[in-house]
């Protein structure tokens, strides 16, 4: 490379995950500066496009969680203003952003994913809540996971064990979005596998195993101590290869670029079961991607710089 990369990190935004995004952005900025990059952190606001024109970055790294950051909108804008960016392009981001769409895509690629239904709020109004919820339970059984069809950080997600808990779970879910995904809860080992693209193609970092004393909810994710992480995950070689292969296949099937994180349940019979994928994985002190990177022997400044250089070279 001819010169130190000039990087703009986008963090903040107006989504429910603004706080996580700000923290992720600061952590990546710190690492990239340590690696010698020239870094500016910018919020997504009316000053952004003039700032991009002024700074003329080699690469923009959107570390925006939630809407506009992960749904492809910002990627569209970056393409419009001629900026190269780290990560997945707008069209694939849109596919990955919708959990049910992503599930159907990976299922077509032969990856197991829990059975589910996707139900918009309007449907309940038209058909009546009770009959629809009863049908969902009849079809999927209990326990169930109710989650917004879009979004992360477990916001609006409820594990439902009884029919009586379902209405409140739906209300909590619809507070975050208009479409709910009701998914059969799968028992097993909770695994997150991050993927990084290199010149040789996508490579899986060591998987991280998540053990909590309850649901892996917002508090469990961002309050250090409540969750125990095993990185690498306590898996046999065969299992480790299976989850790594699943994450890479999901990454490829969805057309993702740069980096991603696939969340899975490894069932007792050894099947990696896809839950969702993140095109802008969290990068906070407690996030899974940095843990995986460290477990893989990477120094974060070097890894993040290599991700930037890959994007700068046109690899996204």
């Amino acid at each position: 490379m001819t010169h130190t990369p000039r990087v703009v990190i986008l963090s903040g935004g107006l989504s429910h995950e603004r706080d996580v995004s700000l923290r992720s952005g600061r952590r990546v900025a710190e690492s990239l500066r340590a690696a010698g990059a020239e870094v500016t952190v910018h919020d997504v606001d009316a000053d952004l496009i003039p700032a991009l024109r002024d700074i003329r970055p080699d690469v923009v790294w959107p570390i925006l969680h939630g809407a506009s950051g992960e749904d492809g909108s910002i990627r569209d804008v970056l393409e419009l203003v001629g900026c190269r960016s780290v990560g997945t392009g707008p069209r694939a981001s849109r596919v990955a952003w919708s959990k049910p769409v992503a599930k159907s895509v990976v299922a077509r690629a032969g990856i197991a994913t829990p059975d589910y239904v996707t139900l918009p709020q309007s449907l309940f109004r038209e058909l009546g809540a009770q009959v629809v919820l009863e049908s969902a339970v009849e079809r999927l059984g209990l326990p169930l996971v109710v989650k917004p069809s879009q979004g992360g950080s477990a916001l609006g997600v409820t594990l439902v064990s009884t029919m009586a808990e379902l209405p409140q779970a739906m209300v909590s879910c619809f507070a975050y979005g208009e479409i709910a995904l009701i998914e059969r809860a799968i028992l097993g080992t909770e695994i997150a596998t991050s993927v990084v693209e290199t010149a040789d193609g996508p490579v899986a970092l060591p998987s991280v195993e998540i053990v909590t004393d309850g649901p892996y909810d917002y508090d469990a994710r961002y309050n250090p101590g409540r969750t125990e992480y095993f990185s690498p995950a306590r898996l046999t070689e065969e299992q480790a290869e299976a989850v790594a292969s699943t994450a890479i296949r999901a990454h490829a099937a969805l057309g993702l670029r740069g980096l991603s994180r696939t969340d899975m349940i490894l069932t007792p019979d050894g099947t990696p079961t896809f839950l969702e994928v993140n095109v802008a994985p969290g990068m906070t002190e407690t996030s899974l991607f940095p843990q995986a990177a460290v477990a893989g022997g990477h120094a974060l400044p070097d890894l993040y710089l290599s991700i930037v250089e890959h994007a700068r070279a046109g690899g996204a």
Partner: protein
Amino acid sequence: MTSTTPPTPGTRLDPWFGAYAQRAHNMRASEVRALFAVVNRPEVVSLAGGMPYLEGLPLDTISETVQRVIATQGLSALQYGSGQGHEALREQILDVMHLEGIDAHPDDVVVTTGSQQALDLVTRIFVDPGDVIVAEAPSYVGALGVFRSYEADVVHVPMDEAGLIPEALDACLTELRAAGRRVKLLYTIPTFHNPGGVTLSLERRARVLEIARSHGVLLVEDNPYGLLGFSGDPIPAIRSLDEDGVVYLGSFSKTFAPGFRVGWVVAPHAVREKLVLASESAILCPSNASQMAISAYLSTSDWRAQIKAFQVMYRERRDAMVSSLAEHLPDATWTVPDGGFYTWVRLPEGLDSKSMLPRAVTGRVAYVPGTAFFADGTGADHVRLSYCYPTPERIREGVRRLATVVNAERELVEIFGTRPALDDVSDVDNPGPDLA
């Protein structure tokens, strides 16, 4: 299975996880707090925070005053000071409190780092884990956080439009005594209540004091808003009725500027001695620079006129708030405060303010869910709306947006037939400063 990778030890990402005091285990990463990260963006109308509208202050004059303090008294202002607080300021605080009928001596005053520290000190010297603190229902979220951190058991007593209900207080204290509970403090915000927006009537002030006295309970009067009334003269503080049974907390944060972090506590002699020692052990001394800046401001500016200007401005905002509520949320009910920063709104039947908050943030409006103001998990059917910071125009826009959110949520609740749930009581544990 063929072979296994070498086992790796798990990590909780916190090497001190096993070392924390029990009370720290209740400190949680809250979704609600995370949602508030969005509210300072200009696109969002925040009816959540208790930030005073500082654009009403004469910043040029204050700037000159602060510069003069540093130029002429810098060696004192930047040095450690008295644990009890700057003497000149303590004398001036008497002038401020005199407006609400309080007679005291400068020695009775302990200057603190905001009245929040005063609250912490009072709780620290009186409350053992398991002791009871009686407080209004609802009560100030920042006080509940302090009480929780000292592992107090908060028991709420209902209010009506005239404030704390004396009969309910008496019954509560009698019942607690019969149950063998140790009630240490009665914590009350009698004037322009946060979040209730109501004011304890003059008749009830004497009665509440008498009840506390008869049960041997120290009354803590928290009064940050008392000078920000919208009609008539300031209401006499409860402390004006009794020197020995009341600990009084005051603050410059709402009547001047919270950035200086200067508040105070007035307490009976023996209590005050312990407060000074407790404060010295916590912070050594309050900021000399802040105290001297405020002292100079009080000496050289017409602070009474400034407070009157604030009264006029906040009254206009209160009017914008209540008229907007009447226009856009006719099915809700709310208090009409005669001063202070907040109105307390009961949502239409069946709505849960905490579970509605993400929808509100999506709709670019913010409020504080009622659950934040109760120690027992109730309050989901209320929200606190503040009118102190946004302009009247923004207040009207905020209430209009809130009405849209409420209507959408109401439809959802009708579809699913849900009821407000009891809150996980630790969720809004320690409020962000701008929520106070």
